[in-house]
């Protein structure tokens, strides 16, 4: 059993940290951090214990915050985190990913930056922002945001990103060029003969299966999907789920065939739990069959939603699964979703949940 397990929460009013005991039974909450700025994503580096938080403040703009002492003190930087003069300025940081010694940063309006000095300064990767399809990108309800960055575990030059509403893009050369990867994902909000364009899809979440970089899962505004060829083609896996709409997805930390989704009742139906009864849905066979996991979750009068980055797994065995709600509750399962418990409530709207396990 790990010595220390941390849940890293982004909220509309600061970052918070929940620390669990060895049995994942007792949790202690600290925060708000980052001067109560709106924080969209918080990640931890299990190798160093360093925590990064990305967000943006209406007064003071975007920044990446970081803490080297588990949240006791924080610094921030946005050096280089800017679009060229005359273009729409960077409004907020929306996603962070650490891999191969680099910190990648996704922002609103959608573009991507990279830091090679541990988040002290940032360099734009302009080819994505300058992609020829850019005129066809449309802001979703959350804005034109780059909200998921999925690095390849072995190849530092390979990276997927997800943008609402532009879709999934892949680079094989470290961000010098990008290719849309949306074939097979639809937009129900377009005329019938225009529902499968090259770009413009409203991807909500993108995750990679453990140990299989070609196997991706996607929660979209319009359906749930699986790709077995690194996003070149997508296949619907929504049959058996209560709706085609949801925000987050989480891949099991070891079993590539197991994925967790959290369908909501529909994009025009309120965007809360179907029938106001909460469930996480799990597939053990790549989305062919689904099982609702409800034990311990509120059944009735559950009018909350869960946002695109607000579900995560830990790396323990059995895997823990966690999600944070729009109304500020955190639910945790220490048994791969079989049973659930509310471990925090009355927080601000939760935008993201990640885990960090330190030895």
């Amino acid at each position, binding site marked *: 059993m790990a010595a220390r397990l941390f849940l890293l929460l982004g909220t509309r009013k600061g970052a918070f940290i929940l620390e669990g005991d060895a049995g994942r039974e007792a949790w202690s909450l600290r925060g708000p951090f980052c001067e109560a700025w709106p924080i969209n994503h918080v990640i931890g580096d299990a190798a160093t214990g360093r925590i990064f938080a990305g967000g943006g403040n*209406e007064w*003071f*703009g975007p*920044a990446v915050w970081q803490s080297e002492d588990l949240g006791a003190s924080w610094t921030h930087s946005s*050096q280089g985190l*800017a679009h060229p*003069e005359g*273009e729409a*300025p960077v409004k907020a940081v929306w996603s962070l990913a650490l891999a191969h010694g680099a910190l990648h940063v996704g922002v609103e309006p959608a573009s991507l930056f990279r830091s090679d000095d541990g988040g002290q300064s940032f360099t734009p990767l302009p080819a994505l922002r300058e992609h020829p399809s850019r005129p066809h990108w449309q802001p979703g309800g959350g804005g034109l945001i780059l909200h998921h960055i999925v690095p390849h575990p072995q190849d530092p030059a390979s990276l997927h990103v997800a943008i609402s509403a532009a879709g999934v893009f892949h680079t094989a050369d470290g961000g010098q060029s990008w290719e849309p990867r949306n074939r097979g994902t639809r937009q129900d909000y377009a005329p019938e003969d225009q529902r499968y364009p090259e770009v413009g899809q409203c991807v909500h979440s993108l995750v990679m299966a453990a140990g299989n970089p070609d196997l991706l899962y996607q929660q979209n505004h319009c359906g749930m999907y699986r790709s077995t060829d690194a996003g070149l083609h997508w296949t619907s896996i929504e049959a058996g789920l209560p709706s085609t709409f949801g925000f987050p997805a989480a891949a099991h930390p070891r079993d590539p065939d197991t994925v967790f989704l959290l369908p909501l009742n529909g994009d025009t139906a309120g965007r809360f739990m179907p029938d106001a009864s909460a469930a996480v849905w799990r597939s053990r066979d790549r989305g062919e069959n689904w099982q609702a996991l409800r034990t311990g979750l509120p059944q009735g009068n559950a009018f909350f939603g869960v946002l695109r980055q607000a579900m995560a797994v830990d790396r323990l065995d059995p895997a823990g699964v966690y999600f944070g709600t729009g109304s500020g509750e955190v639910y945790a399962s220490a048994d791969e979703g079989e049973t659930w418990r509310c471990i925090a409530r009355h927080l601000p709207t939760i935008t993201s949940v990640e885990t960090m396990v330190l030895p």
Partner: protein
Amino acid sequence: MTVAVTIPAALARLFPGAPRHFDLDAATVAAAIEALDARHPGMADRIRDSTPAIRRHLNIFVSGEKAGLATHLPPGSEMLVMTAISGG
């Protein structure tokens, strides 16, 4: 050329040890922001964006008048950086 610059508490808190009041040598608002940045690296990014423009939810007043980046700072003038109404 010395001007008296006051920044909001919420901005000073982002830079440990930063005071709220500065006496700076600057001829324009933009130059004053750069002078703040020289003392507290990163502070310019918090006040103006890459357009470049003063951030949308901040206001700067020079001797009581709302100012822009190009506004001239007469010697002895006061420059006040204020947070506007924002949030929820």
